[in-house]
Each structure stands twice: as structure tokens, then as C-alpha cells.
């Protein structure tokens, strides 16, 4: 499909997302807002499916069918009381998707040896690393939030007093992985090690937080998944990913702040995974 039409469709989708989020903030317009946003998503997906760079549809169709059926069944069957953990699971899935697509495009670039040169190459690897790090944190962090609310693991804060230092070390280690990958993009073991460190960081960030604080954590992880999507947009050079991702990134952060105030919690404690009181 003509690139101009694709970009105009992406612009339309982005506008619908903006109207959708705006609508969701007021009771009167919430249902319509969600519909507008869903329409935007449908437009973005259909236009992308017509992209001429797609050479094989096998894996796309399989993924759409499998994910669509599981998502629909889960969403329609889940009890209303289990909604928070359902949202956590869906959010983790979004983070996992960003992680998966970033890893796939990284390996493809290696295969073709086309990271580019100079600043372009540095930025290409930078965006891949940022996406996998945030994607992995979102994935495992959301899974812990889900497990706590579903009472698969105890809802009480788990961990030890100095856990924030461990989180700090893991955070710095993933940044070190990012820097070393930029210096040596072809080091695939280092790539997967960075993914693993970020995945552990997601666990250790959420484990020390009590079950009562989980809605705030899920809101924050939702913000992360938005930023992961935006970072993925830089990898693919895709405008709608960047716009929608960053919209969710900051609106999610503001919502997190609002929820913290409403629940009388400290945003910094939730951000850095500091042990909360037993919930």
C-alpha cells in the first residue's frame, strides 16, 4: 500500500487514541472513548497487514488467531473481582510482545549485518536494548503482580531490607549491558544476558510491594509498557507506535500518581520497589 496512505491511516489511529484516552477520563464519554480507541487500533492493524514489506503471513495469522482467541476467552470468562490481575496479565503480555519484536528485529539485523554505520548504528542498538530492557521488566513485573493478586504467591511484601540496593545493582547491570552492546552489537550472549538481568529486575522490583499496592504497580507497569512500545517504534521507524506508546507512557504515569494520592501511597516507593506495609 502507498506509504502516504499508510502514514495518514497511522495519523488517524493516533488521533483516535488521543480522543479515546480523553473520553475514558469522564463517566459520560468513557464507553465511546474506548470504542474510538478500539477503532484506531483496528485501522492501525489493517493498514499494517497491507504493508508491502511483509513477505510471509504464516506467523502473523497464526499469532493473530492464537492471541485473539485466548484474549477473547479470558476477557469474557474472567470474574469482575479478578479484573486487576487480568489487566496485569494483559499488560505483561504487551511488554513481552515488545521484548519479542525487539529481539526478532535485532537477530534479523545481525543476520543481514545491517545495523548501519556511525550514529545510526549506535542508535539502532540503543533502541533495541532499551526496548528489551523495559519490555522484560514489564513482562516479569506484571507476572509477579498477577501472581500476588491471584494468590499464587503470598500478597505480603517479599524480600529483605536492602532489596532496593539489589534493584539498583540490577538496574546498573542492565545499563552496562546496553553500553557494551552498543560497543559490540554482534555479542548475542551479552544480548540475552541483558534480557535476563532486566527480567530479574522486574521480579525484584515488584516482589517487595504488598498486595494492596498492586493496582498502583499495575498502573506504573502499564506506563512502562507504553514506553517499551514507543522504543519499539524507534526500532521499526514507525510513527503510530511512537505516538501511542509515549501517550500511554506519560498518561499512565499521571494516572499512577493520581492513584497513589487517592490510596495515600508514595509514588517514589512504588517506583523503586521499596518494601511497603503488609497489605
Amino acid at each position, binding site marked *: 500500500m502507498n506509504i502516504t496512505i499508510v502514514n495518514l491511516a497511522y495519523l488517524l489511529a493516533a488521533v483516535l487514541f488521543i480522543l479515546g484516552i480523553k473520553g475514558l477520563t469522564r463517566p459520560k464519554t468513557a464507553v465511546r472513548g474506548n470504542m474510538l480507541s478500539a477503532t484506531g487500533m483496528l485501522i492501525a492493524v489493517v493498514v499494517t497487514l497491507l504493508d508491502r514489506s511483509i513477505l510471509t503471513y504464516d506467523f502473523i495469522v497464526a499469532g493473530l488467531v492464537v*492471541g485473539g482467541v485466548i484474549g477473547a476467552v479470558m476477557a469474557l470468562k474472567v470474574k469482575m473481582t479478578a479484573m486487576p490481575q487480568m489487566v496485569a496479565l494483559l499488560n505483561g503480555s*504487551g511488554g513481552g*510482545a515488545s521484548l519479542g519484536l525487539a529481539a526478532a528485529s535485532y537477530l534479523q539485523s545481525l543476520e543481514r549485518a545491517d545495523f548501519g554505520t556511525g550514529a545510526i548504528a549506535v542508535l539502532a542498538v540503543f533502541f533495541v536494548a532499551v526496548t528489551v530492557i523495559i519490555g522484560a521488566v514489564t513482562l516479569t513485573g506484571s507476572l509477579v503482580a498477577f501472581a500476588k493478586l491471584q494468590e499464587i504467591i503470598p500478597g505480603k511484601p517479599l524480600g529483605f531490607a536492602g532489596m532496593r540496593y539489589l534493584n539498583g545493582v540490577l538496574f546498573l547491570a542492565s545499563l552496562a549491558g546496553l553500553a557494551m552492546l552498543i560497543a559490540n552489537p554482534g555479542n548475542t550472549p551479552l544480548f540475552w544476558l541483558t534480557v535476563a538481568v532486566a527480567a530479574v529486575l522486574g521480579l525484584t522490583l515488584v516482589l517487595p510491594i504488598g498486595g494492596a499496592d498492586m493496582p498502583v504497580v499495575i498502573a506504573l507497569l*502499564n506506563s512502562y509498557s507504553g514506553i517499551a512500545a514507543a522504543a519499539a517504534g524507534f526500532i521499526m521507524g514507525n510513527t503510530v507506535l511512537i505516538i501511542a*506508546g509515549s501517550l*500511554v507512557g*506519560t498518561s499512565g504515569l*499521571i494516572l499512577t500518581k*493520581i492513584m497513589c494520592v487517592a490510596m495515600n501511597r508514595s509514588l517514589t516507593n512504588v517506583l523503586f520497589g521499596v518494601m511497603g506495609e503488609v497489605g
Partner: protein
Amino acid sequence: MDTILFLFSLFVLALFLGVELITKVPPTLHTPLMAGANAISGITIVGAILAAGADTSSTLVHALGFIAVTMATLNVVGGYLVTNRMLAMFKRKS
């Protein structure tokens, strides 16, 4: 480099827009808004589709592409349905 600068401009403007969009939200709408925004973050489905459709002979890349499309679709379909269900309940109550 110009392209990246253009994309970066979009990114920064959308960040500011996201801050401005959310002002006062009644507590009953906190969870639906979170779920609705979560569904939008499923936009990563667009990138996943492009990654899964690329020409490659690597099984690992195919597998990762398939996983990415599956997870993103789960996020999108589940996200919108869940938000819709929550809002339907909200309507009945008021």
C-alpha cells in the same frame, strides 16, 4: 539522521500530550482507564506484525515474531474487551 530527529520530535510532543490528557479522573474510572490505556499500549502489535512478516530463514526469528504477535494480540483483544466489560458494569450502577 533526519528521520530519527523527526521521530524524536513526535516522541517528545506525544509525551507532553500524554501528561496534559489526564487531569481529574473520578476514582471509579481509575481501573477502566488503566485497562483502556493498557489496550492502547498493545499498539506494539503493529511492530510485531512487521517483525513477524519479515523475510528470514532463521527459525528463532520466526518463533520470536510469532510470540510477539500472539502476545500483542492477546493484549489488544483482551484489553478492549475487559475495558468494555468494566464500563458496562459501571453504567448499570449509576
